[in-house]
């Protein structure tokens, strides 16, 4: 009897100590909908990777919550004003820039190796190697050379003058002490052999508050504290990122408590999140934040009907975007005026206004010669119907929903819309690139703050067979003024003058309408009531870049 009592006491203490320990080890489990195809910060750009990388590595610089460039790895942001950056003339007579950075003194990789200029140089070597298959090769190519002054100080020599001279959000350092050997063995195979994928739990790969400790491809990535992190100590001991491509499962797992939150960057569609908020709004903290995700309709300007600007304008006048926003999205996805976000400092409010005005739309169509209405569809005098085909990514419910609304709203002004969708794998890999859509394509551009729309609007960026289908100007927009504005904005270092050019660019965009602006897509964050400190940025910088600020609310 006494023996068994002892046993009970023993068991109880054991139990208590176990539960005590679990209470101490704070874990946050996040659900997202996509698995990162690689964890190497410099290969492929993908939202899921940026999300995880936000916790495990840090960029040289990035945009903060106010959309201003700020240092993550550097001590002070080099500017022309503080002398960190300097305009220099280059041999061919074109000017370039010299930008000097100093890395934070205490910065270490997760295995204790100090982060040095050597890592910076190595990253540049990988990035600019022709066979490495790194994304953003352009970023590395515009750095002509790097001068190393000491372990922590180095200078980038840029081959051009650009206002974004100190923005290196995509310059993610690679650990030379681990990766150099792999890279030099076979640069063309580096993409596949990188330690980020072959040995992901190597602590030396980490440069953020957390390091990868375990992963199961397609299902889960477990992150533990990085002992060598020198910044603010994060609150959670462990963060588990679980992947559910299927949003039903994602939601069910949240409700059953298997995950604590659904990431806004990669979670429920606005439709689902609104419905979720209706049912469970009391038990969770559901919030919406419009991102730099520009939902719009690219118009193929080679289409003879769409080549007429009046038709493009009429189409936009004939759309009640405000009503769509209110009815479908409960006002959470603001109407876009142009491709520049209202959260951007260069945003221009005073551009031609296309508030819903069906009469004006009809007048414009009549002027353009679409005056004969037969069976509800406008025709020209020679019998051409005013009919367009619209494509979008099949399976994206929100877009399919918008399409249906477009169809019925445009019907009212005598425009017939035929829907023909393709799976994203076809639309993005082929149809858009090769400009195989014959009238309209509804999709989104994801951009960064003050991003110059060169690849989408400059006439040199129209993809053709001759240039190997390179470029993103899918509309085929060729406008000399636009080309000129883009060229000038890029090199204009003076903020006020640049602001002026940006304003002209937006006005021109709104007048010409190479694409029809629709909405700024909102991210839906579903968080537990007890989580504090998570702040959405509204740009492509994920909330995880500030993961060390997340914490449990004081009870």
């Amino acid at each position, binding site marked *: 009897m006494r023996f068994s009592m002892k046993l009970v006491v023993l068991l109880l203490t054991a139990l208590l100590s176990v539960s005590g320990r679990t209470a101490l080890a704070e874990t946050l489990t996040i659900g997202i909908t996509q698995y990162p195809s690689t964890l190497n910060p410099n290969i492929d750009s993908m939202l899921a990777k940026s999300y995880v990388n936000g916790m495990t590595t840090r960029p040289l610089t990035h945009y903060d919550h106010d959309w201003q460039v700020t240092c993550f790895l550097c001590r002070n942001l080099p500017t022309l004003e503080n002398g960190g950056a300097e305009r220099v003339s280059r041999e061919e007579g074109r000017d370039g820039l010299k930008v000097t950075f100093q890395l934070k003194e205490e910065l270490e990789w997760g295995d204790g190796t100090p982060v040095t200029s050597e890592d910076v140089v190595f990253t540049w070597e990988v990035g600019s190697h022709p066979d490495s298959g790194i994304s953003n*090769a352009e970023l590395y190519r515009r750095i002509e050379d790097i001068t190393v002054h000491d372990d922590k100080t180095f200078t980038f020599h840029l081959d051009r003058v650009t206002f974004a001279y100190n923005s290196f959000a995509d310059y993610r350092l690679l650990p030379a002490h681990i990766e150099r050997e792999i890279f030099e063995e076979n640069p063309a195979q580096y993409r596949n052999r990188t330690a980020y994928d072959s040995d992901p739990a190597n602590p030396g790969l980490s440069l953020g508050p957390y390091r990868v400790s375990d992963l199961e491809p397609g299902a889960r990535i477990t992150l533990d504290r990085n002992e060598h992190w020198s910044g603010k100590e994060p609150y959670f001991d462990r963060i588990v990122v679980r992947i*559910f491509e*299927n949003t039903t*499962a994602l939601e069910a797992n949240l409700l059953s408590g*298997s995950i604590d939150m659904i990431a806004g960057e990669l979670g429920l569609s606005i439709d689902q999140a609104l419905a979720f908020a209706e049912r469970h709004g009391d038990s969770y903290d559901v919030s919406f934040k419009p991102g730099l995700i520009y939902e719009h309709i690219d118009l193929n300007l080679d289409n003879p009907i769409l080549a007429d600007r009046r038709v493009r304008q009429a189409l936009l006048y004939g759309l009640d975007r405000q009503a769509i926003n209110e009815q479908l999205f409960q006002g959470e996805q603001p109407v876009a005026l142009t491709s520049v976000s209202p959260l951007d400092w260069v945003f221009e409010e005073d551009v031609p206004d296309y508030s819903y005005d069906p009469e004006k739309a009809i007048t414009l169509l009549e002027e353009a010669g679409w005056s004969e209405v037969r069976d509800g569809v406008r025709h020209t005098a020679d019998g051409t119907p005013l009919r367009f085909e619209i494509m979008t990514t099949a399976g994206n419910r929100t877009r399919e929903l918008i399409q249906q609304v477009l169809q019925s709203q445009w019907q009212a002004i005598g425009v017939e819309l035929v829907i023909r969708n393709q799976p994203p*794998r076809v639309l993005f*890999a082929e149809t858009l690139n090769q400009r195989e859509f014959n009238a309209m394509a509804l999709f989104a551009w994801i951009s960064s703050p003050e991003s110059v729309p060169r690849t989408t609007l400059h006439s040199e960026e129209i993809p053709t067979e001759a240039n*190997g289908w390179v470029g993103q100007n899918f509309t085929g927009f060729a406008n000399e003024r636009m080309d000129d504005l883009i060229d000038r904005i890029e090199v204009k270092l003076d903020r006020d003058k640049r602001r002026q050019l940006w304003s002209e660019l937006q006005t021109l965009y709104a007048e010409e309408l190479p694409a029809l602006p629709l909405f700024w897509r909102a991210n839906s964050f579903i968080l537990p009531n007890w989580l504090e400190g998570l702040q959405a940025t509204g740009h492509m910088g994920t909330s995880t870049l500030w993961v060390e600020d997340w914490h449990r609310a004081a009870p």
Partner: protein
Amino acid sequence: MGAFLTRRLLEATFVLLAMSFLIYGLIALMPGDPVDLMISADPNLSAADAQRLKALYGLDRPFHERYWNWLTAALSGDLGYSRLFAVPVTDVLLPRLGNTLLLMFAALLVSFVIALPAGLLAARKPGSTADISINLLAFAGLSLPSFWMAILLILLFAVHLGWFPAGGTGDGSIGSTLQHMVLPVMALSITSIGTLLRHIRASVREALRQDYVRTARAKGLSENRILYGHVLRNAMIPVVTILALDMGTLFGGALITETIFGWLGMGKTIYDAVMGNDYNLALVGLLLATGTVLVANILADLVYGWLDPRIQYE
């Protein structure tokens, strides 16, 4: 026996080779090659970059040459990398093959445990209410779209009752894996129960008509003795064949079930690979699945011989 095995293995190898050629050819017809995908991912790639990358990955070579290169590399053990997971395809596929086999065997087991007694019951009392209702249920099982079944299970057990998770593979512990398996196994079993039930019922009834049963009855052996001692063994022979032939179908069922429940198996991997333009993963995945099915067929043939010693392998 040895000669039989050799012949079957040779045949299987030939089928795999033919399949690899066919699928490789189909994949060449897919929208977007790897370089197209890189271009769409990085707007700043130049035309020269595109050309160079195509040459680097051998995409500018004619089809037969590419296939040959792939084949020789594959035979020497290099099956290439997955685009979606950035690791060698075998690293993705092998654990997932395990997951699929786990699911399939669990489903087969459940189906047998249910179909065998029910089939025997139906076969022993032809025309009884039990027989009719069992037969109706078998028909129903056969006619249920498995994906709909899966959705209904989610609706009932995950949404309404909250007993089981709506998807995922769990956190790796045995308890959690079992919990996550319940619904997919249920969804996958229903169709096979229907098929099995009908076959067991038919073949047991057929076996019961044989002469030796009459002899045994005349000898006064108990009905149970006859059933379990003689009939069952003979009745199992056609059932095993059907099962083996049905492996391909079962695999298709697993694909749907895995996709709906987010179970990380081969079927879902192949589907995701096709949808995500990860063609190498799709190719090797489908070959691995075919290989598995072919091996299952050969195994079934061997079991067949073990069940029926009269059969000679030639």
